[in-house]
């Protein structure tokens, strides 16, 4: 059953058309890697899915919610869809546990004690229980990124979106974060992830989607796609920067 259904989405910034009719369907428990050159519209697609960007035409349904720009509906949607960004975006004035419990407490009315239990659970999921009371600026980049993931998980989302969550990290720290994502995949979380880590995409993602010039240029089971890219563009892309 498809938990994310994107249908003919067009998105323009002024005159610039960034998404030119994107359609994609993701089933529950699937892991989808989105790859493509800078500027091809990967982030924009993710941001459209959780309503951070409005789009001009087409429709998106995610976890049973129809994506539309109505504040109350958006909030309901976002309780079911977690997103993690490249730049972590932790709240610098709150401790790790406060970062995590903020939204459950004020949007779901979870009590302080229960919220703490949740915080402990998701922190151990990402292997950072000992940073419970630390402030974000006391953590390394990789640790911050894992807290950002934990913060999303605390909402018990049905779908997780990841936007280049390792690009700002050096190789060692990248490893930490990829491990957490692999673990999530194993636990059956539905995930869409934009990534530059081809080896990770290949090994973890069920499906890989190659975006090019605002379109889904090529898509398919990861193994196949990486081994037998059909379009010239994807062949060129895979040949270029990838190590």
């Amino acid at each position, binding site marked *: 059953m498809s938990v994310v259904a994107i249908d003919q989405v067009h998105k323009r910034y002024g005159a610039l058309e960034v998404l030119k009719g994107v359609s994609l369907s993701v089933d529950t428990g699937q892991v989808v890697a989105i790859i493509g050159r800078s500027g091809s519209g990967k982030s924009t697609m993710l941001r459209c899915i*959780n309503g*951070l960007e409005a789009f001009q035409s087409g429709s998106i349904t995610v976890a049973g919610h129809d994506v539309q720009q109505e*504040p109350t509906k*958006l*909030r*309901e949607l*976002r*309780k079911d869809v*977690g*997103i993690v*960004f490249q*730049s972590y*975006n*932790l*709240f*610098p*004035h709150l401790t790790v546990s406060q970062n995590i419990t*903020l*939204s459950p407490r*004020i*949007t779901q009315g979870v009590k302080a004690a229960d919220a703490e239990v949740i915080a402990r659970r998701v922190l151990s999921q990402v292997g950072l229980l000992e940073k419970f009371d630390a*402030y974000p600026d006391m953590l390394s980049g990789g640790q911050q990124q894992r807290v950002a993931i934990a*913060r*999303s998980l605390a*909402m018990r989302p049905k779908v997780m979106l990841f936007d280049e969550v390792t690009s700002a990290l050096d190789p060692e720290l990248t490893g930490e974060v990829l491990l957490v994502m692999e673990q999530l995949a194993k636990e059956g979380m539905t995930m869409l992830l934009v990534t530059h880590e081809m080896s990770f995409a290949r090994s973890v993602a069920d499906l890989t989607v190659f975006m090019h010039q605002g379109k889904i240029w090529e898509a398919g089971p990861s193994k196949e796609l990486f081994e037998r890219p059909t379009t010239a563009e994807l062949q060129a892309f895979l040949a270029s920067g990838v190590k």
Partner: protein
Amino acid sequence: MEFSLHFASVFAESDLIIRGILLTIGLSSSAILLGSGLAILLVATRNLGNKFVRGCVDAYVELLRNTPFLIQLFMIFFGLPLMGVRMSGTQAALLAMTLNLSAYATEIIRAGVDSIHKSQIEAGLSLALSRIQVFRYVVLKPAIAKVWPSLSSQFVLMLLASSICSFISVPELSGAAAIVEQRTFRSFETYIVVTLSYLALALVLKLILIWLGHRLFHRKVVSILSTASKGGIA
């Protein structure tokens, strides 16, 4: 020129001065609390409201920032009664100080809010917070932290500007001093006492604000005097 200072007759009126100091403290601290509270509300309103609401808040800020405090005070104390709203000098002073401070503080805090990166707001929204909740829990504190020095300066300026309230009979510090001065003609002595009192009040306020800033925003209290700059590279 044979001139010498005689503080005796000024100190004879120390009752009046001390009551003035207490009133200055009371007025200033209330105005700081109420004015900042109002400013936060205004910034929130401006932030969440539509173009019209934003225009109204801007008009309020510009009107109060660009006209003299004395005249605002005058209009509230003498003008409002003509429209049937009467309040005591102290109430009028508190209202005028609160409004005046709120205008300056609104502008300062707004700058702080504008400097909060968009990604923080997006992160908040993505966690299913409403725009008001994002403002309250995500934006507000870091925004105020960023502009705390300017805000503190504005508070001290307000403390010093409260002297103007003596114009409408409020016997705060400088009002009390003017009474003493006119009774005794010991001008220099009076003004020296007043200057030192304001200096003490302002220093204490400033130190409290610095301490509070570190307490609220830095998690560790550091030395209050100068800390070396990050720019200290030869």
